């Protein structure tokens, strides 16, 4: 319909004719010039994915990665002008991409990489110092109805695969030879200060944090925890040490 839409559609689909009315200053073929533009658009988007998903690229090799990324770019052109977040749905695409089926953990490693980008760009937020947390403990009876809010960068990944260990091995932090990809991992991603941190947590700790992230009260989260393998103290220590708690609110109204 509009000229802009026509131009946009033609940019992303090489099968379409070039937009009407294009001319060149020196009389060269506008179709050739437009092809350069098309190529730049596609390649820059593929490059953006390679920047955001470096470990995924290392896992399958550049050639495979770029071919896969190209198909994704065709299917999911950017909807936002923020290139850093382009490809948020790329992990889902990978998960359902048949040629990548032999690397079943690829999509979760990619998810972890995007969570790190998201955490990196998350809003700044002051978190509670230890003495402020201690203060909110003063009224013990209020604790079960209290709600914890986390630093905005806190993210959780539940993976059937060893997503964090695979990722860490590609940072030179862990030895790839010792990583069994088939071991499920729960991963906490956060950026309390300057650097993004990636921490593996137990499934029960992940359950607990997931409930709190959903807005459950401390009491509900504790009562729903699988007590067999849940370590409340260690979990709270983690939240306190990493300074992930931005507020603890009591809902006095609900207390009988």
């Amino acid at each position, binding site marked *: 319909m509009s000229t802009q839409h026509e131009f946009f559609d033609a940019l992303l689909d090489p099968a379409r004719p070039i937009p009407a009315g294009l001319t060149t200053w020196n009389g060269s073929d506008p179709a050739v010039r437009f092809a*350069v533009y098309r*190529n*730049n658009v*596609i*390649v*820059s988007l593929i490059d*953006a994915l390679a*920047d955001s998903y470096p470990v995924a*690229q*290392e*896992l*399958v*090799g550049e*050639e*495979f990665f*770029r*071919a896969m990324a*190209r*198909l994704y770019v*065709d299917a999911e052109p*950017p909807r936002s*002008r*923020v*290139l*850093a977040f*382009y490809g948020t749905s790329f992990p889902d695409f990978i998960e359902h*991409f048949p*040629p990548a089926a032999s*690397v079943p953990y*690829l999509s979760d490693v990619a998810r972890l990489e995007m969570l790190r*980008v998201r955490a*990196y760009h998350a809003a700044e937020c002051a978190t509670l110092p*230890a003495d402020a*947390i*201690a203060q909110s*403990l003063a009224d*013990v*009876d209020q*604790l*079960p109805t209290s709600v914890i809010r986390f630093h905005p960068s806190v993210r959780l990944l539940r993976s059937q695969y060893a997503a964090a260990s695979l990722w860490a*091995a*590609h940072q*030179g932090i862990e*030895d*790839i*030879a010792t*990583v*069994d*990809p*088939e071991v499920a991992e729960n991963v906490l991603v956060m950026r309390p200060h*300057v650097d993004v941190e990636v921490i593996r947590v137990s499934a029960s700790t992940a359950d607990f944090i997931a409930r709190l992230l959903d807005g459950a009260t401390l*009491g509900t989260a*504790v*009562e729903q925890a699988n007590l067999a393998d849940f370590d*409340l*103290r260690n979990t709270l*220590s983690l939240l*306190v*040490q990493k300074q992930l708690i931005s507020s603890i609110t009591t809902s006095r109204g609900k207390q*009988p």
Partner: protein
Amino acid sequence: MSSFTMTQKTTAAALALAFGAALSVTAAPVSAADKMADMEKCFGVALKGKNDCKAGAGTTCAGTSKIDHQGNAWSMVPAGTCTKTASKTSPTGFGQLVEFKKKKA
């Protein structure tokens, strides 16, 4: 109703205890405030590749000389480091070991 209250009381006590322990662990070493004093937020330093020419969406400094191949390469076997990652189906368990730029500390 009273059993509910009991549960609530037990939960409250468990939470208070666990929080107390968590805080005592943290209180001992270098206080958070001291640690923060050594650091400063450095704005404008983006992740690699996120704020250089590639990140200016639509800018053309990236890719002008690169011709991307059409998407037919995916029909081959993924050829990256996954071959060096443990695999239950592989006869060797995994291929040759690590070749990453190691910076073990």
